[in-house]
């Protein structure tokens, strides 16, 4: 089971939080860019024939002798689109399972609170979406669908996200779960954003990747791309590696910040509930 029932039950009190107004296809619980029928007053406008006369502000009419219509905020559902990296590089140190659990949990809590969610999986075959989850049951179906996904092959994240965008994936809130271990990580992050769309990058990296315990002369073989690198690992070399990795993480976080994307570095060793209930909540991704 990808997500245990008790975990799911604890997630029920969370819901997605959006930083920007979004336009959903269906009415929901999130502020929309449209004006609608919520209880939150937004503005007035001139009455035109055909308007619902029940929305004429008669107090204004009494004071100003003008027919104005009261406008209210619309509340739309959020369409949560999760892109899950399922390439071979994620198949290490429970990185993929961590990502899949996060994707399932986010989709579940979204569906539970009237939003809809689906997961796009990127692997050697390109990118493919899961069924939409709009309810608890359909979210369970999505989780079961995720359980069937096996990471493998070499994927091309930028190309996959291009297809994702053309399929309208960026209209809602987009969350990318990946290790970003590719030369094209910056292009990947760039494709994640479109005007007005909110999103997040959940950067999954194992502790061994941040602080390798390798020593001596080694031929490091790339599991995904197949290339190899010869290294003679001394303390000095490892120190330089750690420094470069930290600099790279700072660059990724900065790129996300500039694009208004929430960034969270996730380790497979992190506790999922603590991650969702504390860190993502503090980060404003859930509430």
């Amino acid at each position: 089971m990808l997500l245990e029932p008790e975990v799911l039950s604890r997630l029920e009190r969370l819901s997605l939080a959006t930083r920007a107004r979004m336009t959903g296809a269906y009415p929901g619980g999130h502020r929309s860019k449209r004006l609608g029928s919520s209880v939150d007053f937004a503005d007035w406008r001139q009455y035109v024939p055909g308007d619902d006369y029940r929305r004429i502000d008669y107090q204004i009419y009494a004071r100003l002798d003008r027919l104005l219509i009261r406008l209210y905020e619309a509340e739309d559902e959020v369409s949560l689109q999760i892109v899950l990296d399922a390439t071979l590089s994620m198949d290490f140190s429970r990185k993929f399972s961590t990502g899949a659990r996060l994707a399932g949990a986010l989709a579940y809590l979204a569906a539970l609170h009237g939003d809809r969610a689906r997961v796009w999986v990127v692997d050697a075959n390109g990118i493919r979406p899961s069924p939409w989850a709009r309810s608890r049951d359909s979210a369970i179906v999505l989780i079961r669908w995720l359980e069937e996904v096996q990471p493998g092959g070499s994927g091309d994240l930028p190309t996959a996200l291009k297809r994702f965008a053309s399929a309208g994936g960026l209209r809602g809130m987009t969350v990318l779960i990946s290790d970003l271990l590719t030369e094209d990580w910056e292009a990947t992050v760039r494709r994640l954003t479109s005007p007005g769309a909110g999103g997040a990058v959940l950067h999954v990296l194992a502790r061994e990747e941040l602080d390798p315990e390798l020593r001596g002369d080694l031929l490091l073989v790339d599991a995904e791309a197949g290339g190899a690198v010869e290294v003679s690992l001394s303390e000095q070399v490892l120190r330089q590696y750690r420094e470069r990795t930290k600099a790279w993480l700072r660059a990724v976080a900065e790129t996300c910040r500039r694009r208004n994307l929430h960034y969270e570095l996730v380790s497979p060793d992190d506790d999922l509930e603590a991650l969702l209930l504390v860190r993502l909540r503090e980060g404003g991704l859930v509430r």
Partner: protein
Amino acid sequence: MDGLLAPAALAAAALAVPILIVYMLKTRRPRQVIPSTFLWRAATKNVSASRPWDRIRSNVLLFLQLLALAALVLALAQPYRSAPGVAGDQLVLVMDASGSMAATDQEPSRIEAARTEAGRLIESLEPGATVSVVAADSRPRVLVSSTTNRDEAMRAVEAVEPSESDADFAEAFLLAESLETPGHPATIALISDGGLSDEERELVPEGTVVRTVGSSPANVAISGLEVGEGPNGFRAFVQIQNHDAEDAREVELSLEIDDAPVVADTLEIKPGALVERSFDLGPQSGRLVAAIDAEDTLPHDNRAYAVLQRSAPRRILLVGPGNFFLEALLSQIPGSDVTVSKTPQDPSRFDLAIYDRSAPPRSIEAPALFIAPETLPVGVEGSGTVRHPQITFVAVNDPLLDQVDLSELAIARTADVRVAGARTLIGTGDAPLVATWTKGSYRRAFIGFALNESNLPLQVAFPIFADHLLSWLTGSEPPSARYAGDAIDVAPVPGATVIEAAIPGAKGERLLPGQALEETARAGFYELTFLNGDDPIGERTIALSFPPSESDLRPRDIEVTADPRRPGLTETSRRPIVAWVLAILLAFLMLEWWWGHGRPGAPALTSLFRRERAA
């Protein structure tokens, strides 16, 4: 480097291939699959796993190792340098040590250039070859004989110092040839500036290798200093020669008597010209030094020495029946006081006793000349006469016969005698016609024939020979030595048992009466002190000057007749320079080790054939 003794060893350069292969082949490393090499690629350059070799990148260690290999291959190939070398296994070096070798026209001096040349020849010898060194000055001597020790030979070469005399090359060549193993000719190498006389050039051993030194003839020298005695005192005659054929020279000439200046003159000497000056010096006796201030390459010939000494009046006793020629001759000798007697007198009161056809006493305490005496004096033995003797021997080099032409001498009869320990000046067969010797403190001369039984008194040579002989007998002859290098034949002083000689620039010598002073390589004043036991009874000063022949600094070639039996020089002597190459190899190896291990920050595990893998 002119070639390789073992060029086949260059094939060892192929060892570079395995070294390069070691560098090109991928090191077998444990494979470690990781999620992505993305972060590692930032640390190292990527290497494609599909190729079994690396592209060789610039690598200091590889560069140093290839350089070391190149040096090793070169050492194995035994590079050599071609140089003239000694072909044989015996080398006899004749080093010119004459006065002209002190010239500095060739930096630092001709003698140093000669030493360098000698060093080259010694170095070119094969191992086991022997070296002998002969120093050729006025008294040639062997400094080292047939040594195989190069250091000893070099020390002998370094010990050769230029004298202030000319060189007796004839004697030097005799010495050199005596050092050869009989039947096994040695390589004789003459290192000289070419200042050999024509006679000496004829004596150069055939096949001798000649190395000449010297470059410039420019030199100004005092080529002559003569003193004469006149009624008003002494007079000096000075010759100064400019050997420089291109530039005129102006020199300051000064004459000093006992360190007190008496003459100073400025002379302009045209190129190649000889300037002669005479100066009245007055009656003062003493040591005369003539000096010029020429700045040239040979300072020794800028000073000349002479002794101003008044000759004492000579009392001469002539015992005999009367001799017109002889009496006429004696009366012409300045300062002489002649006593003619037909009966014997005590000779001890005279400076010279002449017994002409008379019987001399047994004991004569004075110098004596015997001319066909009636009875033979002590030391002369024999009987009978030789009629019409043919002159078979003339000591032409004896100073007493200088300028004496005896070619027309004819003698009717002479005594057939022998004189023990005498020097024969003129002889017929075994019998001396004229002989000289020294008995105790007195000189003796014997003429075997009566003057009126020969044509000698009618010869031009007669007054000259008589003057020489009488001067020698009385010890007032001109000094036998005038130039450094000439042996000083010391005229005895009656009663002297030993003579102490003070030599300029060297420690003194003690001589016995009749013994010549041979150690005369330096110019200057030689002080002779005559001792009776420890008591000084007389002194004499001899002045020796730098020989004018050595002032001619023209470098001259010496032509030598070839001798196929004598090994000379081979132009193809190959001197291995492996030691240098090995030193370079060692330097490369040390540098390689330092780069790999020693320097700060060097990779810890690098070894000779291990690639550097810095991060």
